[in-house]
């Protein structure tokens, strides 16, 4: 793992850009600049280094709602919280780190107000968690968590997320470097019907 390098601090590329280019039809989203981060995928039991326990519980619960575990594994199994921890530790812009930490504080305050006997988001029932997140789904805090969660799900596993390639398996993406046709159903049918391989 490498220390924070100031030239690599473009951690979150602003989504508030003026651009809406049609070349890519849309802007590249806010995203992580993790290229100098050579951390290994974290074991489930490995201690977190940037997040305290409360933050970890709350943020992991949010990630688990964004990409839930159901019949197939989700954000918890993919190690998203370790991915976020590594990101904070290594490359995240201070302003985004503060947005995350303050987000947890605000979350606890408002959940505490709404459900005084529970106090914590992560201790709410599944339905109440979803209901609450719907009420904040347009906030910058939630959007940051969404981008972090999806990035952690589908990024190369070397960054600490996508553990056991859970995210890629979910998509049906197989990361082999060599393929031979047929690639899919329609080109296979085409070849079967005597189409030219080209």
């Amino acid at each position, binding site marked *: 793992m490498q220390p924070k390098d100031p030239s690599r601090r473009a951690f979150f590329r602003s989504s508030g850009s003026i651009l*809406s*280019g049609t*070349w890519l039809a849309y802007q590249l989203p806010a995203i992580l600049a993790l*290229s100098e981060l050579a951390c290994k995928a974290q074991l489930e039991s490995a201690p977190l280094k940037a997040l305290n326990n409360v933050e970890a519980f709350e943020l992991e619960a949010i990630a688990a709602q964004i*990409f839930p575990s159901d019949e197939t594994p989700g954000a918890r199994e993919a190690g998203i919280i370790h991915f976020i921890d590594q990101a904070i530790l290594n490359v995240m812009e201070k302003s985004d780190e503060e947005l995350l930490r303050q987000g947890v504080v605000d979350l606890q305050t408002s959940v505490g107000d709404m459900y005084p006997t529970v106090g914590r988001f992560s201790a709410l029932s599944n339905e109440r968690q979803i209901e609450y997140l719907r009420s904040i789904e347009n906030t910058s805090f939630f959007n940051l968590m*969404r981008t972090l969660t999806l990035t952690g799900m589908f990024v190369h596993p070397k960054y600490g997320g996508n553990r056991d390639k859970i995210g890629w398996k979910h998509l049906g993406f197989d990361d082999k470097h060599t393929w031979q046709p047929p690639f899919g159903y329609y080109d296979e049918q085409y070849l079967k019907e005597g189409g030219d391989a080209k």
Partner: protein
Amino acid sequence: MGRQFNSREEVDFVIVGSGAAGGVMARELSQAGYDVVVLEQGPYLQASDFGHDELETFFNLEWMGGIDNEFPQTYRLSESEEAVLVGAGLPVLIYARMVGGSSVHFTGNYWRFHPIDFTERSLLGEIPNTGFDDWPITYDDLEPYYTKVDWEIGVSGIPGPFDPPRSRPFPVPPLPVKSSGVLMDKGARALGLHSQPAPMAILSEAYQNRPGCVNCGFCLAFGCEVSAKSSTLATMIPQAEATGRCEIRSESTVVRLDTGENGQVKEVMYLDKNGVEHAQKAKAFVICANGAETARLLLHSESSRHPNGLANSSGKVGKYLMFNTQIPTMGLFEHPLNEYKGVQVTRIIHDYYNADLSRGFYGGGGLDARFQPGSPLWFALQGLPADAPRWGKEHKRILEEYYTHTMSVAAHGTSLPLESNTISLDPTHEDKWGRPAIRVTYNDHPDDLSNLKFLQDMSVDVLEAAGAKHVWTFPIAPTTVGAHLLGTCRMGNDPDKSVIDRFHRTHDVRNLFIADGSSLVTSGRGQPTMTIQALAFRAAEHISGFAARNEL
């Protein structure tokens, strides 16, 4: 490893830039027997440096040569506005700082221009308030060099029904068709259109000591790990070095061209990676730095003899910037396509290549079958319909269903040359070397967007006719991102209206030549690299001739 020259010795040619055009120029001039130094601002990467790390390569912009905030760009819609610094995310101008330039990460669509692209002004008449013009050369002038690109660079394909005449077949056959290509065939047939195998600068089989494509799927924005993609890094650059007369001097950023008493360029000033200034003398200079950097360099080379910038007595340097228009449309199908495998594009439709003013606007273009956004993270973040759930159980389910079952039809169209669309020097912001930032002023001609909408509608029709279960589009908006940097030092016979002559020599400076996207008079239909390289081959032949006849 090529030869190394002492920067104090005068070489025959300095070439600025090592991309699609500069790589061709380097090989052609060195093979013709001249000593050549190529100055490239980015690093010298090798195929072994490339991989599939989407975060690092794509999102972190390693495909463009790394951190962009060291080289800020500013943008405005029109001259009346103050340009603003482009924030994080994609820059306005997309190009790569590395040996091989943007040919390293391109998708490899190698459409030739058609004869009409060179004479459309005469055919269609004037378009008011634009710089729409004929080229000083014709398709026939360029055809031998298109063929040279096919055979020297390595282009896969087979002629299609709307293709312009060619003097030789393709050197290698088309790449294996993907499901997206088969579905484009089906949609086109149902609509009475003509889908054809795409000409691609990616080898379908071994050719010239390079292997055929292994269908890994990581072309768009990625360097090729096996050198099947016909970048100049994989083709021209090593051949130039092998002559023993060419030095590729990477991490060398040219900041100024200095002229002597006779008005000729005497030397280029450049900075090494530590910011230390050096000079390189040469008999002649060829600028191949792309349609943004070339214009910036000339403007930044102003002097008492050239108060408006070098080679700019016409005032046209930096003007007529053209980006082309592009937009993908997405379609979901019943069975898996697995579009993440294989090259991006295997089929194209050129039925709407020609402009037809009876549509109510000028413009033409083409469609291609591809998968964009296609890499896993990019698709997860931006591939789904705007009205799809953004998180939760249903979002998770949709990602699983859609990723392997989706393709896109991308539309590519014309951009009219407008004098008000420009590259200029920003008066406020500087890059890390203290140069003025590149300022982009760009606003599509209304016809450009009407044409794009027309092509987008065609894309929807093709997907629906192919049997898509669900088709979704992205909003058409003003073009604020350009990967095709065209027109800013346009070619022409009239020194008052153009920057270079038909042989790529600047009208003003005898030993200064330009060959890259900036030379284009019109934008073509959305795939300019083939033409940029044909121009470079042709320019190199003329420049060699001038040198041989002592006419530099």
